[in-house]
């Protein structure tokens, strides 16, 4: 295989597919893929945390819930404009993530996974029981449509385009993050903490920053979720969502740039096409998750990249010539 798409070609193809898809898909599949876009937004942030910084969170479903509930409560109960509510939801969730992450990310080990799991369970229980504020099991109906500068995102199709616009922007920004001073520090500490620290990287600070950023992405997806369905309910964000997010990362390819997008589209598509097997969705995700770990440890994207790279492996040392400045 000698031809390989360039980055620009791949991105243009992605945009083209996202734009054209609704013309061919039914209304139902557009709704499903809008959901895929929401999962992609969360997965892009989570991938930076898990795939690049090497830390695991089981609480990103709760950050989604926080975003959705703050948006829902502020717009429905207090009549705030959606954008202002969204800003408060996203910044507030970032603050919560900072308060959780700052003490926990100082210590080594998998404490973050345990603490975020506990935090997420608390958030989900509170959201379904604190009836006066969250509407309890009924949730919050009547979340208004999002409108930006007078343009109302009042159909599922318009929301589909908004969601995928956000997802693709965040996707493109993640390339910039990874290829920056911060991103190199992140990748270095993910590979070896002490070696990164020995070169001046403040490991704890970097980890906290990426944890907060990934929580902010999740909150943003939660806000969009609330406006997309015009409804918030705690069961939208239970532990199964977190399991699905992890499955998205593993199937798509942890630590690859395209993995979260590919994984999100694949798994959301699968989950919506289970038909009569919907009640086995947890089992099916478990099989996909385990199967990917066993047979595609690099995920779909990692595997494809490895094949493409293997096919055109350049001998070492044939890299770009560098002007020799021998001292």
């Amino acid at each position, binding site marked *: 295989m000698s031809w390989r798409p360039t980055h620009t070609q791949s991105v243009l193809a992605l945009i083209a597919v996202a734009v054209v898809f609704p013309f061919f898909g039914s209304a139902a599949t557009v709704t499903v893929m809008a959901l895929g876009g929401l999962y992609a937004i969360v997965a892009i942030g989570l991938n930076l945390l898990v795939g690049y910084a090497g830390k695991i969170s089981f609480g990103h479903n709760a950050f989604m819930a926080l975003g959705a509930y703050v948006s829902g409560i502020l717009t429905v109960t207090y009549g705030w404009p959606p954008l202002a509510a969204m800003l408060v939801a996203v910044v507030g969730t970032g603050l919560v993530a900072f308060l959780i992450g700052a003490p926990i990310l100082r210590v080594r080990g998998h404490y973050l996974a345990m603490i975020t799991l506990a935090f997420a369970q608390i958030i989900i229980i509170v959201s379904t029981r604190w009836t006066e504020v969250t509407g309890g099991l009924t949730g919050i109906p009547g979340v208004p449509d999002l409108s930006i500068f007078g343009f109302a995102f009042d159909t599922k199709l318009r929301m589909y385009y908004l969601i995928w616009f956000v997802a693709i922007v965040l996707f493109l*920004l993640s390339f*910039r*993050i990874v290829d*920056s*001073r*911060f*991103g*190199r*520090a992140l*990748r*270095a500490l993910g*590979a*070896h903490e*002490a*070696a*990164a*620290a*020995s*070169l*001046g*990287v*403040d*490991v704890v600070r970097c980890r906290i*920053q*990426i944890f907060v*950023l990934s929580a902010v992405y999740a909150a943003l997806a939660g806000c969009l979720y609330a406006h997309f369905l015009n409804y918030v309910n705690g069961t939208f964000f239970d532990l199964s969502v977190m399991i699905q997010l992890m499955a998205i990362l593993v199937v798509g390819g942890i*630590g690859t740039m395209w993995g979260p997008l590919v994984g999100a589209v694949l798994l959301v598509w699968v989950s919506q096409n289970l038909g009569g097997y919907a009640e086995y969705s947890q089992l099916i995700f478990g099989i996909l998750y385990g199967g990917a770990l066993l047979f595609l440890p690099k995920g779909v994207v990692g595997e494809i990249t490895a094949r493409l790279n293997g096919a055109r492996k350049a001998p*070492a*040392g044939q*890299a*770009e*010539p*560098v*002007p*020799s*400045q*021998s*001292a």
Partner: protein
Amino acid sequence: MTSSQLIDVQGLTKKFGGVTALDKVDFAVQPGQIAGLIGPNGAGKSTFFNVLTGVLPGNGGEIHFDGKRLDGVQPHDRVRLGMVRTFQKIHPFYGMTVLESVMVGCHTRGSAGILPAMLRLPAVKAEEQRFREAAKASLAFVGLGAQADVLADALPLGHQRLLQIACGLVTEPRVMLLDEPASGLDANETARLADLLLAIREQGKTLVLVEHDMSLVMKICDQITVLSFGRRLANGSPDEVRRNPKVIEAYLGSGEHRA
């Protein structure tokens, strides 16, 4: 304490439970010198190195760097002070190219955070360009200029050692602490390493190396400290150390004497 010392360690003690790994060790390096730390296996070299670089806390004594107390300063903050270390065990940054790995060493020379990076502000672009040039210069200096775009973990061991030095140099250190830089190298590679270390000293930098390769230490060090069973056994020029009977007994000739 004399102010002419760049690194001044006094009475450094480290205990692991009941075992005293370091017993009131003194150690000093003058600026612009290459200091060697040698000793038989288990002498406490690695422990000394780890306490000196802040990886392990000490149980007593003082470490001064350029007149400032170093104890309690985080390893990553020491880089800003002008102290950088390498590891005996190679830890390549998987998935990163050689050039990117060296650019990690530029971390303390810049300040761009996540948001400026996402917006790719002009200041960020300029900083990235500075990093890239500094990293390329550092790679060219150690002789890895042609490998800039190779994945770091694909390099052979000898090149990995040079890469570590390039990463360290790009932090613009005043002192480099090298943990067994010749370990795993063949004679040719060791000879080239010796030339490189001497060239680094020529730039006015100070070097401290913990090393097993006796000929390398004797060849390039201005001053050698010998540790044995956690104590400082001897200290002086290579010639003085070589002729010191205690050193010969404890280290160089122990096999024959005990036989």
